């Protein structure tokens, strides 16, 4: 098959490409020290959404299970980090890793029963799950602080360093996350979950352990989403249930995913970029129109590029920047 592979700056010769990558790295490295604090926050937010949207991409884009309530893992990650740091006095990074693991374990345990449902039943089940956990967290006052929320230790860093710290932590996790999704898309496991999306029953009789694969895909998705929640909690230093279990968050994640292109590695990055930065620009100039313009954009994309903006990069002219190289005979799986 003449498969297309999306490569950033793919049509440019190799040394030039390396220079471009280096320039991008330097640019990303310089932002927190040169840009205005506001834009550093916007960028950090962008990286956070990249992590979450890639997380949704794994379970929805690749496996075909629209986990609209995936924000529950963001909330769990945030609360685990908060509790471990403020009540148990754990170091941030240890608390963060544990938050990711708890979110992942939660997805694995609940995935087994919930992933038996399909289509809109699954969507509703995940939203129900989010509401359920939100209620539990709101009422477990002794552990979570209940509806009053919970404060985290305030990092003892000067503001600029503080901004840079969260910027780089989010950036690092986002890069790892995109890389993991890239590897996943090439792996035998990735092949398996794509088959589940295409035809679950046929995948089952081909010998793919569908229950386990779905649960593992959701675990991975939840792990990254939990990490994003953990960093968010320490970044904000205060969280409360309505904020970290907000369904509007979840809808925004899906907007970004569909806009960029689900089931692709870079689609979520593109979608998040457009929504976050375009959103900020419009907000700055025409706050009233923001939602209207974004909504129109979504309709246009759904009508004309249903595969998402990633498809646009396959266009000839634009393709010079984001090019799709035609690769001969892909080896989807190495046996």
């Amino acid at each position, binding site marked *: *098959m*003449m498969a297309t592979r999306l490569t950033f700056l793919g049509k440019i010769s190799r040394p030039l490409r390396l220079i471009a990558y280096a320039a991008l790295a330097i640019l990303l490295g310089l932002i927190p020290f040169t840009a205005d604090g506001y834009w550093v926050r916007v960028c950090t937010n962008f990286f956070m959404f990249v992590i979450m949207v890639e997380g949704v991409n794994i379970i929805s884009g690749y496996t075909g299970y629209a986990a609209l309530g995936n924000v529950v893992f963001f909330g769990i990650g945030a609360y685990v980090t908060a509790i471990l740091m403020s009540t148990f006095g754990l170091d941030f990074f240890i608390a963060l890793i544990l938050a990711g693991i708890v979110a992942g374990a939660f997805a694995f345990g609940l995935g087994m029963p919930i992933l038996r449902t399909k289509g809109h039943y699954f969507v509703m089940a995940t939203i129900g799950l989010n509401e359920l956990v939100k209620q539990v967290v709101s009422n477990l006052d002794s552990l979570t602080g209940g509806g009053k929320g919970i404060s985290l230790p305030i990092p003892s860093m000067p503001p600029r360093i503080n901004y840079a710290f969260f910027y780089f932590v989010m950036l690092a996790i986002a890069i790892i996350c995109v890389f993991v999704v890239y590897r996943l898309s090439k792996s*035998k496991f990735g*092949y*398996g979950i*794509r*088959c589940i999306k*295409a*035809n679950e*029953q*046929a*995948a*089952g*009789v*081909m*010998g*793919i*352990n569908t229950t386990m694969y779905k649960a593992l895909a959701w675990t991975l998705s939840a792990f990254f989403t939990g990490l994003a929640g953990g960093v968010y909690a320490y970044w904000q230093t205060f969280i409360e249930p309505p904020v970290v279990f907000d369904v509007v968050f979840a809808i925004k994640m899906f907007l970004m995913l569909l806009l960029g292109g689900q089931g692709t590695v870079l689609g979520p990055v593109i979608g998040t970029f457009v929504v976050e930065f375009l959103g900020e620009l419009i907000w700055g100039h025409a706050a009233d129109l923001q939602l209207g313009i974004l909504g129109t954009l979504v309709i246009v994309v759904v009508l004309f590029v249903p595969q998402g903006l990633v498809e646009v990069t396959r266009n000839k002219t634009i393709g010079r920047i984001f090019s799709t190289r035609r690769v001969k*005979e892909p080896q*989807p*799986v*190495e*046996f």
Partner: protein
Amino acid sequence: MTLVVKDLNVAYGDTQVLWDINISVAKGEVIALVGSNGAGKTTLLRTISGLNRPKSGQISINGQDLTQATPAQRVRLGVAHVPEGRQLFAGLGVRENILIGAYLRTAGQEVRRDLDFMFETFPEVAARRNQQAGTLSGGEQQMVALARGLMSRPQVLLIDELSLGLAPVVVEKLFNLIRNVQKELGIGVLVVEQDVEMAFEMADRGYILDTGMIVKEGRGEELLGDDAIRKAYLGI
């Protein structure tokens, strides 16, 4: 006997659809399973490959009990299912679709050899190996589904509605291909088929299923002239 189904009862909720089914498929045998719509043919195949759970009874392959096994475990033990309507992965290429059949196998060299064998056996498919599976004709899609099933190196291949939506010439060709491949690989085949005449001509033995019960079994030619067929299909 490779595949043995013993006293199998299957129900959907309170509605029992299969009653005390006993069938067997030996190595190198082609078995036809015929019966009118709603007789339970597809349910029987789905129960053998683990998509449905039986109420009671036993399914075994080479003496090994499968009754509690998951679909994936059954593939490993040698059951391959070519489902009704082919159920290809439409978004994936032909080659990828065939390779999925070998998902559980780890010996790369052998898998590649088997893939070449499939392309030799189904040359029409080989010519389209890089296309999307959804763009193929019905007959070609059925070939992909068969090749996919064979890629797991099964002991028994279950084929549901081989002729669904296909021209009679194509079905005959597929039947001949199946006979050749099956002989060469020494596997058992259990095929559900609507074209009764062709099915019994091609098969070594056959079973007639009527409202969930096996009403007749025997050698292919014998069953062809049997009244049970008319009864099972027309109820007269």
